[in-house]
C-alpha cells in the first residue's frame, strides 16, 4: 500500500519534470535501470579511450597529437563524472570497475571495432562522437539529477570532439586519391556501427518503454537514429564521400532519409563479447588497472602516515 502511494507520487514528480535526487524515494526497478545505464555509459567513455589512444603516438603532426591527447583526456573525465553519478546511487568505484573487468557490465559495442588507419580517427570523431552527442544532448534532461548534471558538463566539452574529427575527414577528402580512399574506407567501416549506437529498434528494445515512462530517455532509439542520419548524410556529401547504404533515399513526405537496416545480428554478436576487439579492450583495461596498483597503494600509505602525524601533533 505504502509502496503504491510512493510509486504514484514518484511518477507524479517525473511527469511534472522534477528531477530525482540520490536520497529521494525511487522504485527499485528505476534505481537498477538508471544505475545500469550510467555505469554502461561510464565504461563506454573509459574503454572508448583505447581506439583513439591507439593513434596518439602516430598522429601525423604535433597539432593533431595535442588535439587527440586533449580529446582522449576529456573522455577520461567523462568517465569520472559518470562514475561519480553512479556512486551517488550507493555503489562503490571498486565495484563498478570490478563489474567492467569481469564482463558483468557492458559498454557501447562501437568501441570493439579497430581503428586501422588515421582516417578512422576522423571518422570516430565525426560519427561516433556525433552519435554520442545526439544521445547526450537528450540526456541533459534525464530524470535522475546527478546523471543530468554530468551530461550538461559532458555536452559542453563534446563540441570540439566532433569538429576535430570532421576536420580530419575534410583534409583527407581534399587530399591525394589515396587519402580520399582512406577517408571513404573509414566511412564504410564506421557508418553502420555508428547507427547501431542508438540501440536496437524500440519495438525490440526491452528497456525502451520504461526509459520513456520514467523520462530517463526523452526520445526513442529510432527517432534519434533518424535524426542522426538526416544530419550526417549532407555532411558526407560536403566531404564528397558516399554513405555505404544502397537503400538511402530522401523521403520528401517525412522530410527525412529512408535508410537500410543495420545488421542487428552483428550488433548482438559484438555486444555479447565476440566483436573484433572485445578481448583486447578488456585485457588492456585490466592490465593498466593492475599496473597502477602501486600508485594507489603508495598514495594510501602516504595519506595514512600523514594522518598519524597530524593526530600525534
Amino acid at each position, binding site marked *: 500500500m505504502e509502496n503504491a502511494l510512493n510509486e504514484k507520487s514518484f511518477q507524479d514528480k517525473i511527469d511534472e519534470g522534477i528531477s530525482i535526487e540520490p536520497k529521494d524515494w525511487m522504485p527499485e526497478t528505476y534505481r537498477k535501470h538508471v544505475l545500469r545505464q550510467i555505469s554502461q555509459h561510464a565504461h563506454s567513455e573509459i574503454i572508448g579511450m583505447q581506439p583513439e589512444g591507439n593513434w596518439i603516438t602516430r598522429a601525423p603532426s604535433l597539432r593533431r597529437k595535442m588535439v587527440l591527447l586533449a580529446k582522449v583526456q*576529456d573522455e577520461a573525465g567523462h568517465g569520472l563524472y559518470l562514475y561519480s553519478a553512479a556512486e551517488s546511487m550507493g555503489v562503490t568505484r571498486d565495484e563498478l570497475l570490478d563489474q567492467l573487468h569481469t564482463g558483468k557490465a557492458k559498454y557501447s559495442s562501437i568501441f570493439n571495432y579497430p581503428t586501422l588507419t588515421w582516417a578512422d580517427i576522423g571518422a570516430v570523431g565525426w560519427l561516433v562522437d556525433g552519435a554520442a552527442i545526439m544521445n547526450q544532448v537528450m540526456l541533459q534532461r534525464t530524470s535522475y539529477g546527478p546523471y543530468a548534471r554530468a551530461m550538461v558538463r559532458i555536452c559542453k*566539452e563534446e563540441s570540439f570532439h566532433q569538429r576535430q574529427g570532421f576536420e580530419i575527414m575534410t583534409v583527407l577528402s581534399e587530399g591525394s586519391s589515396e587519402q580520399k580512399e582512406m577517408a571513404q574506407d573509414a566511412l564504410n567501416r564506421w557508418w553502420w556501427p555508428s547507427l547501431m549506437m542508438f540501440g536496437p529498434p524500440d519495438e525490440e528494445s526491452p528497456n525502451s518503454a520504461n526509459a520513456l515512462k520514467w523520462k530517463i530517455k526523452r526520445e526513442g532509439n529510432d527517432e534519434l537514429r533518424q535524426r542522426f542520419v538526416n544530419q550526417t548524410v549532407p555532411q558526407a556529401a560536403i566531404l564528397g564521400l558516399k554513405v555505404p547504404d544502397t537503400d538511402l533515399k530522401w523521403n520528401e513526405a517525412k522530410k527525412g532519409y529512408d535508410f537500410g537496416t543495420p545488421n542487428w545480428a552483428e550488433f548482438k554478436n559484438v555486444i555479447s563479447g565476440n566483436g573484433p576487439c572485445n578481448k583486447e579492450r578488456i585485457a588492456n583495461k585490466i592490465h593498466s588497472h593492475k599496473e597502477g*596498483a602501486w600508485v594507489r597503494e603508495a598514495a594510501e600509505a602516504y*595519506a595514512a602516515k600523514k594522518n598519524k602525524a597530524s593526530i600525534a601533533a
Partner: protein
Amino acid sequence: MSDNQGILWEVFVQTKPGLPHKHCGSIHGHDKEMALQNARDLYTRRNEGTNIWIIPASEIVASSPEDTGSFFEPANDKVYRHPTFYKIADGITHM
C-alpha cells in the same frame, strides 16, 4: 586494499572572483592535496575556475528529502518577510 580509490570528496568551484563557490561534482583522492589536484585536473581543464573548495563527502550534513515539507514549513506563514507584504503610498520611489 590495493584497489582502494581513495575517499570521495565533493568539489565546489568559484568561476569568477566575487562569485560564490558552486557544487560541480565529486572526485576521489587519498588525501586533501591529491584530491585538490585531481579536482583541478577534472573540473577546470578549460579555465572554468578561479578557486576550488573540496570537502570529504562524508562530512556533508544534509536535510532529508522525506522531511522537506515539515522542515521548511516554518517559513511558509511569514509573508511579512517579503517586501511585497507592505503597502506603500503611491508616488514613493527608491524604496
